[in-house]
Every structure is written in C-alpha cells, then in structure tokens.
C-alpha cells in the first residue's frame, strides 16, 4: 500500500507548541502526518480541508486550543462550529467523516499530542487509503475553487534582484 498522506492544521499557540513539546520530550510518533501552521484554528477554512481531501489526503487533523483557552479568545469556537458542520457534510462528498478529526491540544500537552497523532494515524491506517486516490482520481469532485481559488503561480510583486 502506498504511504498514507495525512495533513494536520495546527494553531500556533497551543497545538503547534504542544507538538513542539512532544518533540522536545522525544515522544516517538508515526511519520505520515505533515503539519501546517496557522495562527488559529479560526483561520481554517473548511474549503481548505475539502481541498486537501480532493488532492488526495487520506486524513486531515485540525487541532487548536482547548475551549476557553484560545489565544484570540474565540477563534476556536468559530472553528468548532464551522468544522462540525463540515464534518456532517463530508459524506455528501463521498468522504468518510472519520477521516477528519478535530481536537484540542494545549501547549503543555506534549504527551497528548503524541497520542492524538498515533491514534489518528492508526485509525486511518485501519481504514486504508482513500478509494480511488491511488488511481489518481480525486474522490470528491466538489468544486473548492469557487471559494478559495486556485493558488496563484506568481505573486503580485516580482522581486527586485539586488545587483
């Protein structure tokens, strides 16, 4: 079986720091997950998660601060509402909702982070790869572009090259 592709969206203040702590404590974890850092889970656009699945992610993990502990006071509450809805919509796109996991890990919970990664990876391992993903056909045809657009290949300002 081809290697699983797992993406984690972590808020900078709690979960990213928690993952750092797990690293500092040398807590071994499965190697499939790749982490993308965000200021807050409130920055996670549900469409971004769909995009990830569309591009062949076998599992997507979002982790933020515990309720009440958000660095921005309420960002994680927005995330909770948005992602709860997303999770209910996933079956409509042909994605098992179990492939998506939203949780809280604080900056002092290194052990918990290692546990979350391990459990999540094991779960997706048991589920296997997204069907069709190996043939290169994205499972979900939902158009994400409407909302977030395709990434620009070129950004606005061309760099001035110093002489």
């Amino acid at each position, binding site marked *: 079986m081809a290697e699983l*592709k797992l*993406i984690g969206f972590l808020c*900078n*203040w*709690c979960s990213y*720091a928690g*993952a*750092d*702590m*797990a*690293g*500092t404590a*040398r*807590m*071994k*974890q499965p*190697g499939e997950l*790749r*982490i*993308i*850092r*965000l*200021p*807050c889970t*409130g*920055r*996670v*656009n*549900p469409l*971004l998660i769909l*995009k*990830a699945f569309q*591009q*062949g*992610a076998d599992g997507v993990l979002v982790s933020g601060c515990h309720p*009440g*502990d958000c*660095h*921005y006071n*309420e*960002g994680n509450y*927005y995330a909770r509402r*948005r992602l709860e809805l997303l999770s209910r919509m996933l079956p409509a796109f042909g994605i098992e909702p179990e492939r998506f996991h939203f949780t809280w890990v604080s*900056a*002092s919970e290194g052990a918990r982070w*290692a546990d979350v990664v391990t459990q999540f990876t094991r779960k997706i391992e048991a589920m296997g790869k997204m069907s069709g993903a190996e043939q290169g056909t994205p499972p979900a045809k939902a158009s994400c572009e409407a*909302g*977030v*657009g395709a*990434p*620009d290949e070129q*950004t*606005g*300002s*061309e*760099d*001035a*090259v*110093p*002489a």
Partner: protein
Amino acid sequence: MRIGVFVCQCGTNIAGTVATDKVAEAALSMRDVLHAETLQYTCSDPGQRAIIDAVQKKGLTRVVIAACSPRMHETTFRRTIGQAGMNAYMMEMVNIREHCSWIHSDIDIATDKAIDLVQKGVARVRRQVPLYSTTVPVTRRVLVIGGGVAGIQAALDIADSGLPVTLVERGPTIGGNMARLDKTFPTLDCSSCILTPRMVEAKQHENIRLMVNAEIEQVRGYIGNFEVDVRKKATCVIEDKCTGCMICQEKCPGKAPDEFNAGVGQSKAISIPFPQAVPMVAALRKEYCRQFINGKCGVCKKVCPADAVDYEQVDEITTEMFGAVVVATGYELYDWREAYPDYGGGQYPDVVTSLQYERMLSASGPTAGHVQRPSDGAEPKQVVFVSCVGSRDESVGRPLCCSVGCMYIAKQAILTKEHIPDSQSYVFYIDIRATGKGYEEFTRRAQKEFGAIYLRGRVGKIYPSNGQLVVMGTDTLSGGPVEIEADLVVLATGFSAARGAGELARKLNISYDQYEFLSESHPKLRPVETTTGGIFLAGACQAPKDIPDSVAQASAAAAKVIGLLSRGEIETSPMVAAVDQLRCIGCFKCRDVCPYNAIEALELRDGRQVAKVIDTLCQGCGVCNVACPPSVVSLKGYTDNQLIAETMELLR
C-alpha cells in the same frame, strides 16, 4: 525569484535522524531554488553569517530555513535576513527538529518528511510578499498581580526604574505566604525581619499604588496597552480613614477562622490579619459578622474612633491601562485531607500541615511561639515529619516535587529542637533534595547538631492510640517496618497553584498546566515570559519554588518589563488582515466575527460601504478571512493562496 534553502544539522539533533545532505540536494531541484546548503548550527554566528553571505552573493530574494521550531528561532532568523538587506518576512522556517528528527528514529522516514516540509516551505515563501510593521505607543504603567514576596520584589524593581506600578493583592495585606513563615532556610533568617521592611517600602514607594482586597475582573487589549478592570471588594472599612488601632477587632463579638494563621487559633469577623500587615487596615468578613447574619450588632462601627466602618460599602470596579503585567499569584498548600484517609483525612487534631506548624513555631503566631499540640495544648516531645504529602505521589495524581519540603522539614526539625530541647524529631523522607547553596549542609546540620532522625521511607498509616498518634512507616534502609509514637505529626504538604489561578490565566490569555501552574514561554530561554506578549511570570505561580528563586524570577520579570517599556513604543506584527476594497461587497460578516472590533466601515467616494481593518487593533487570528463570502479579506502571511499551496505541495 531566487530562493535559498538552508538545512540545519543542529549538531546531531537533526543530522542524527535526517540526512540533511539529501534534503539540501532535493531542495535544489525545487522550483526557483538556486541555492541550498547544510549548516552545522544555523542559529550560531557562523551559521547566520553563512545565510547573509549567500543572500548577498547570490542575490537571494526569499529564504527557507529548515531547522528547529519557528516558535524558537523565527525572530532570530527574521533579524538575520533583515541584516542581509531583505524584508524580514521573506523567510520561512520549516520545523525538521521538534516535528521530525526528534520524533522519528527511521532515517528514511525522517528524511522524506523533511524534504516534504522544505517543499511546503518553498511553496509558501514563493507566495510571500514583503510586510512592514508599524509601531504603537505603549502605556508606561505596570500591573503586578499578587502581593507575595515575588510580587513585592517585581513591583519595587519596576518602580525603582521610574515606572508607575499598581500592585493588586486579593487578600487584606501584602506579604503572601512568606509573611506566615517563622524562619527561612538555610540561614534561619527571621522571615518577618527580612520581609516586612520590603512590605513597608512597597507601601511607601512613590511609584507604587497598592490595591488590597482587589481582584482582576477582566483584561482587554494587548502588549503595550492592556485595559484592565480591577474589582475592589467591599470590606466595610474605609481604607483612608482606618488607622489600624485594632479596637474594632478587640471588641468584635463575631468569631471567625484565622486564615493568616492557617486555621490555628481564631480571629474575629473584623480584623487585621497580623500586627505587621501592610496596609494596616481592618477588613470585615460578612459571612462571620453578626451585623450581616443577624442584622444587628454594630459594635465595630460604634467603637471605631476614626469612623471608618461603613456597612453599606459595595464593590468598586476601576479600569486602568497598563503596558505590561507581572503575574505573581503564588501558591497555596495542597489540601491533603481527601487524598490521604490513611493519615486520618483531617480527623486527628494533632496531625497538622507544615504551614500550621510554622504558625505554631512563630513568635507572632497564635501560641506566641510556644509549641502546643492542638488537641490538649501539651508540649509535644516526639514530633514526626512526613515528607511528600501530595507531592511525588502518583497514587493521588500528584507526581510533582514541591521542591522546598525537604528543606523546610529540616528547618522545622531544627526549630523544634530549639523550642523544646528535650524533644525528638523523626523525618520520613523519600529522597533528600537539597540542591541550593548551603542546602545540603543544612539538612546535615538538622541531623548531626539537632539530632533529627531521618528514616527513608513512606508513612503508610497514622492512627490514634493512648492519647498519642502511632505513625507506621517503612525504613527502606534497614529494610523493615517502623512505628513511632508521636505527640505531633507534621505533614510536609506540597504546593498547589493559588485558588483561581486557571481562571485568572484565562482572563489574561496565558497558558497553564494541569495543576494550574502558569506556563512559561520556553522552559530554558524564556522562563519569565508567557506565550502572550507583555505578560510575565514571577514566583511560585509558575511552579513550586523557594524564596530565593521567586525573588530572582521577580527581578528577571521586572528587567523584562523595564526593557519592554523603555522604548515608549512597540512594533506591531504586520501579519494582520487586509481587505481588497475593490472586491468587497460590504456585507460586514468580517466585522461580526472579529473578536477585537478591528474592522470598521469605510465609505468610498462612490458611496459604497466597504470593510477596513484597523491595523493596530487586529491581532491576526484570521477568523474574518474565513468568514468573508467573496474571499477578499486576507490574513497577511497566511493567505488562502499560501495555505492552499502548502497543502497541495504536501499532497503531490
């Protein structure tokens, strides 16, 4: 576009598990990457110089650094590329240490992951644009929360630099737990003699405003400009009028528990906690006051010569701006009763906590320094100390070390012998942890000079027998059970965070651990900072610690505060939201979700209403970015395009 990739080996921290050469090689084949190299320690001076050299020689316009966590060195490297003449934000850090080399042992897995992460970093930095920070003026005033020795020290140090300080204390006096101690280890300095002058100094300092009986109600704002509501609790005593004559306390008929004396002895419903209290002002506790319980009494009001008693007083909330906050909320003793039924669970009066014993030893305590056991007032001859009650005990969910128990037991054993020369002390211990200056020598003195008998083992049970207490324990050195008939048992109870520490942390938006001790930003390099800029920690609120460590940390926090506010203004992060006003449809969903009221309406010349971000208020959470229906609100540094590019790169 000219991108340079620098792969840090971090000695063997990264290179031990990640084939850094391969990562650098792979980076060279990534789009627009024209330079890649490995560096032994990127954060070191030669490492940073190598980056600057490469930027200048090869004309790099963007840089990816694969090293440790950006939470560790992002600011370091932003400065580096700034020195190289680039915009500081044209750099992306990729975490191949905490998130890679340290958590994997298979070199292939770790190397593959590191390459993926670099690829992600390149994709992201390709879409980065230069960002410029602005500055905001700061409020040059400081809030210190907690009036124990750490809070007093921080307040004095900051005030001495010329900055005004407001010192907020929840209780009726400053001084904290240290004011309750009789002597301090290892010098046996009289605690009051060294603390009370500092308390008075804090009270008299021209730059310090003392607020006792006050608690933090709410905190808004950010580093440089915190807006804080402080609740001044009604004590039914007009502070300015009270002269501290204590006549009210003398005449008050309402008995109340003596909190200052840890429940040893009794106090009155209206009282001054102890004769050296600062401020020397009485406070009334309504729950014990006859005036409030029965609706009639009024003795204190009648006898007060200064007319300072006011039963109608109500809580007052004041709001003030502060540039920085020092949290020094300290600790309280772990409540052992529930967890230790084997020690009687609080049923035996002659099983006391170390703080209660401290009050019994103190000349200013309720027994005037005569050690009397609570049950019958007799002088104890056999005193047993039990260490690690609620510390280092996984079975009650408290694996942490209290860090001072070993030392204060030695101190109390010495003082016991001094108070009662024909007494014998026994100390049950797990290990003797005496790591400070002069500490080991001190515990030896307790044994050699003062004859305390140290037994290495835990106590399993305490039970009453013939007017004494039998302490059953083990002596693991001789390998057998031990039983001692004790007149008094002193439990060396561990530290808990101060009541409500977690709640305060949430108000301040700072992190705390499972015991509600407040979390420092980095355990080694940022020990007094919190994860929230402008808020600093001092003393035992962060973790159990002794007086010298608390004072040292308080001075460190003060230095940080003075440094922060010395500039008069601070740079704000440029990673804030921005609105593309041409495409904005004026729905203001962004304004509805913004936690900071950082979005306002702007009327364009054609009369169209569009959203506008107030840069100085925006904190960069990005909630608005997601809420925007046409996706025209964008968080700089974390744009949709950047995040999608990262995601797609990882899934290629």
